[in-house]
């Protein structure tokens, strides 16, 4: 049942991503991208990451897409004409992206057993032994709740990256204000 929902959400994500790329109007493309992000949030939920699913809806589908819509409406682009590149570009894209996709789709063959086998180099260990960390994280979530299971490692093992992120955000705020204010 859960697997079927996952496949449906995946199909919605892929379909709306295609529509996002092919829509002529940037506004319609942005709306289809929101659909992609919401279905990705559902997939995160099924993959056992409810906190990430919530942030996906709040930050991506909420904040970042509102920023995009603000800029699109601020620019007042009028009636959009087609902005697709020429035929040579299409050929290069289809060949290049097709080659890349055929390599990446090989990942679909991976399951827990194969992943464990390739990490350890032998087939002696079952996935439950190799991936004890994942099981430990699930138990931590059960004991401390969804937010507690994430916040513990975030403020202990990952404290330095977290603080660096705050400096990055400060730099982005100052940079965006300076860029948008100055008459270029």
């Amino acid at each position, binding site marked *: 049942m859960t697997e079927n929902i996952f496949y449906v959400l995946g199909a919605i994500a892929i379909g709306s991503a295609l529509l996002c790329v092919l829509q002529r109007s940037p506004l319609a493309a942005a709306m289809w991208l929101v659909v992609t992000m919401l279905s990705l949030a559902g*997939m995160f939920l099924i993959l056992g990451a409810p906190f990430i699913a919530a942030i996906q809806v709040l930050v991506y589908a909420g904040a970042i897409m509102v920023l995009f819509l603000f800029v699109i409406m*601020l*620019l007042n682009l009028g009636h959009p004409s087609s902005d*697709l590149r020429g035929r040579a570009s299409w050929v290069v894209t289809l060949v290049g992206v097709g080659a890349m996709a055929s390599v990446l789709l090989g990942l679909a063959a991976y399951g827990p057993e194969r992943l464990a086998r390739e990490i350890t180099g032998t087939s002696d260990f079952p996935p439950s032994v190799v991936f004890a960390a994942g099981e430990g994280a699930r138990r931590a979530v059960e004991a401390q709740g969804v937010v507690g299971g994430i916040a513990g490692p975030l403020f202990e093992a990952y404290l330095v990256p977290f603080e660096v992120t705050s400096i990055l955000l400060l730099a982005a705020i100052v*940079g965006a204000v300076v860029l948008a204010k100055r008459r270029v």
Partner: protein
Amino acid sequence: MLLGPALAISAILFSIGVAGVLLRRNAIVLFMCIELMLNAVNLTFVALAQFHGVGGQLMVFFVMTVAAAEAAVGLAIILGVFRHTKSVDLKTNTLLQG
């Protein structure tokens, strides 16, 4: 444990994003395609976090922060370019071509 399907969907979404960056000339849509690629990578991180522990989910957290910062600065740059050339079409923005 959905690992293979999640990685396959992520691969397809990433490829669509790359194709969009290569095919479109509208700078805003190009930015959206970059966000799409970041989202595809996030899906990979979450799928593998089922096995590796909570580190993968935290990496998604950091990717989202960087994406937000990148979108804010990038869109400010697009606004500046639009003021200069009255267009977001990359064909008309050839100032750096020499």
